[in-house]
């Protein structure tokens, strides 16, 4: 007991030492030991590393791009490593925190990219893209938004544009003798009609939280336009207090209370695709989901997509709403940044990769084949075969949108996104009132 103070002092002394050590370790390794990432062999020639997500539909095309580049550039080598979605998020953070990240950092742009920028982790590509206008012109202009922080471009849009759309089961509508909705009022009118037929009006993988978020994004945009969220994004104090937000939240809870979603939707997960299965098995009539769901339903739903069972549209207008119904929400692209900690040599390889392989025709054709609309311009001519109709519509939605807003959880900082997803889940379970929701969210504005 008597030597308690001493031991505490020692403890703090040790802690201070450790703090120094941790800081040193974090800074120190940015020195010469860092070759822009992995210890992937001390290859004498040029080497750059690239981390991204594993699994279908993207991995094969990512790997193909790397192979193509390595073949065309025998004296420089890109090594790709692929991680599962959740695993990647942790892995990249740990690696960057220790200054051991890859040369090329794959991401979703928005708030996550902003953190990289404020931490000085990624290269400013603005002037490089200025010098290489040809590269920039090959990419859809609307995709650059989420790769831009404070007017400077820090990430190259790659891969595909993924708007969120309202999918519906045409067969279910046909047999029920109902028409797809053209407005929010019609949606609410359809709800009791489907419920009476024991079909869930909407399928929702509510356990995954971000699925619920898509509803808020569209409803807010349709009622109040994109300005409200822009204010939130800009970190304006009390930006969530806009009356349109309360109105939107009330509408959502009305939909929940009217049994707009399948029974037990909070236990349904999007990651096993159970929400999509509800739609293609006809247990639900409609579903709001990312455009990638098309590929999943095509692969898993038997002949559902092939026989024309799947319908899609942009989210309908809300009566009296100020938002432009052409607006859309989703992923305006995926994003590739260059680590500022990489060696000049590795950076040059990455830039070469950006300006050649990632904007070539094979890249474009590959992503079309994967079932997506590429971020590269002029891909419409490639839309052929079964998927042509869907791809054309997605391209129309993406290109025709006055505002292509990025998903909120990706646009906001990771800190705010956590609170957002949490509160959205509570909103859908009617655990919080719209006002409580607004108060909670105002608390993390600008964080």
């Amino acid at each position, binding site marked *: 007991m008597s030597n308690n103070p001493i031991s505490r002092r020692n403890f703090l002394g040790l802690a201070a030492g*450790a*703090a120094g*050590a941790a800081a040193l370790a974090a800074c120190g390794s940015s020195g010469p030991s860092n070759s822009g990432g992995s210890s992937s062999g001390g290859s004498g020639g040029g080497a750059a590393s690239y981390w991204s997500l594993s699994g279908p539909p993207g991995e094969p095309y990512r790997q193909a791009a790397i192979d193509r580049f390595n073949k065309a550039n025998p004296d420089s080598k890109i090594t790709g490593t692929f991680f599962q979605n959740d695993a990647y998020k942790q892995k990249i*953070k740990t690696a960057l*925190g220790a200054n051991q990240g890859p040369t090329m950092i794959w991401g979703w742009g928005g708030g996550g990219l902003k953190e990289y920028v404020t931490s000085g*982790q990624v290269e400013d590509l603005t002037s490089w893209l200025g010098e290489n206008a040809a590269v920039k012109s090959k990419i859809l202009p609307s995709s650059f938004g989420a790769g831009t922080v404070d007017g400077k471009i820090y990430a190259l849009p790659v891969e595909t544009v993924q708007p969120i759309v309202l999918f519906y089961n045409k067969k279910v509508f046909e047999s029920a003798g109902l028409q797809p909705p053209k407005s929010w009022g019609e949606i609410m009118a359809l709800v009791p009609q489907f419920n009476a037929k024991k079909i869930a009006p909407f399928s929702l993988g509510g*356990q995954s939280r971000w699925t619920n978020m898509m509803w808020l994004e569209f409803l807010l945009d349709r009622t109040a336009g994109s300005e409200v969220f822009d204010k939130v994004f800009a970190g304006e104090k009390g930006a969530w207090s806009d009356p349109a937000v309360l109105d939107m939240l009330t509408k959502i809870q009305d939909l929940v209370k009217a049994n707009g979603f399948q029974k037990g939707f909070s236990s349904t997960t999007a990651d096993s695709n*159970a929400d999509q299965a509800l739609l293609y098995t006809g247990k639900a009539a409609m579903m709001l989901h990312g455009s990638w769901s098309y590929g999943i339903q095509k692969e898993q739903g038997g002949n559902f997509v092939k026989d024309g069972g799947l319908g899609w549209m942009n989210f309908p207008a809300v009566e009296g709403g100020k938002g432009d119904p052409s607006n859309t929400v989703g992923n305006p692209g995926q994003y590739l940044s260059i680590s500022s900690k990489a060696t000049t040599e590795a950076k040059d390889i990455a830039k070469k990769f950006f300006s050649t392989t990632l904007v070539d025709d094979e890249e474009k054709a590959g992503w079309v084949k994967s079932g997506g609309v590429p971020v590269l311009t002029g891909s419409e001519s490639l839309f052929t075969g079964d998927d042509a109709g869907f791809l054309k519509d997605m391209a129309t939605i993406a290109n025709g949108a006055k505002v292509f807003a990025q998903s909120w959880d990706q646009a906001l900082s990771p800190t705010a*996104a956590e609170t957002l997803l949490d509160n959205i889940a*509570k909103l859908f379970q009617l655990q919080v009132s719209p006002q409580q929701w607004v108060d909670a969210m105002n608390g993390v504005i600008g964080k």
Partner: protein
Amino acid sequence: MTTIAPPVVRTKEPSRSTGGRSGPVLWMALPAFVWFVFFGIIPLLGVLALSFTTWNGIGEIVPSGLDSWKATLSDPGLPHALWVTFLIMALSWAVQTPMSILIGVFLATSKRYREFLAVLFFIPLLLSSAAIAITYKALLDPSFGLGSGLGIDLLNQDWLGNSTLAMATLIFIVSWQFIPFHSLIYQGAVRQIPTSMYEASQIDGAGRVRQFISITLPQLKYTIITSSTLMVVGSLTFFDLIYVLTAGGPGDATRALALAMYQQGFQANLMGPASAIAVILVLVGLVLSLVLRRLGGRADDSQLEGA
């Protein structure tokens, strides 16, 4: 010391020599100690240090005094997470212990089919928490799960979407995963109880229940302590299962400390507060393990030194 009378010295000798032998035995503890300090304590001190900083996990580490601690301690989520942690610990212990003992006692009698049962019971242990979580999420799906498979609508509940049900489901899955292991331990322990004890009490006309209470349970005392230690300490740090199963949801209904720490640190990028939570977690664990130590150490400690 030297003035102590000869007979006393003789009885004291062994125990003193035990104490005196700490020299010869000390080095035996060194490999474990050094190893653990290197990969456990040094990183922990790093975390302690981080709890006095602001760091988003990727940028620069900025010392910020007590900011993280203030934020953490004033967050209403903290007492809630402590409560959830305690709840998971207490409930999973309360469910697993009696079940494991009963099953263990039953399996202890050697019949072939019971050994077969023991093999099957072992399987859940071999599966990773992630695989278990994926399996249960599929089975508990209100549209495509167990309920629709068996045609029992009662099973189509909002298992993971309702706060109370989600906690119950979590406890059930933890039990599913670990009861087999603890049954196995108890099975081993029960086989160790001398048969003569039962025979004697049978002569006294004791029934099965009384035998269980007066012989089996007291004989299992130390096994219960060991198994409880594993359960309690394990429940503190387990994380994968909750992460994949509910991610702490619905809302924050199953957000235990370890998960709260992970979400603060790796999802919200608040490494400072996350480190503070980690330190709290270690303190909670320390208190718990001291209590368990007291229970398990049964005073031999003091006897050895005091003698």
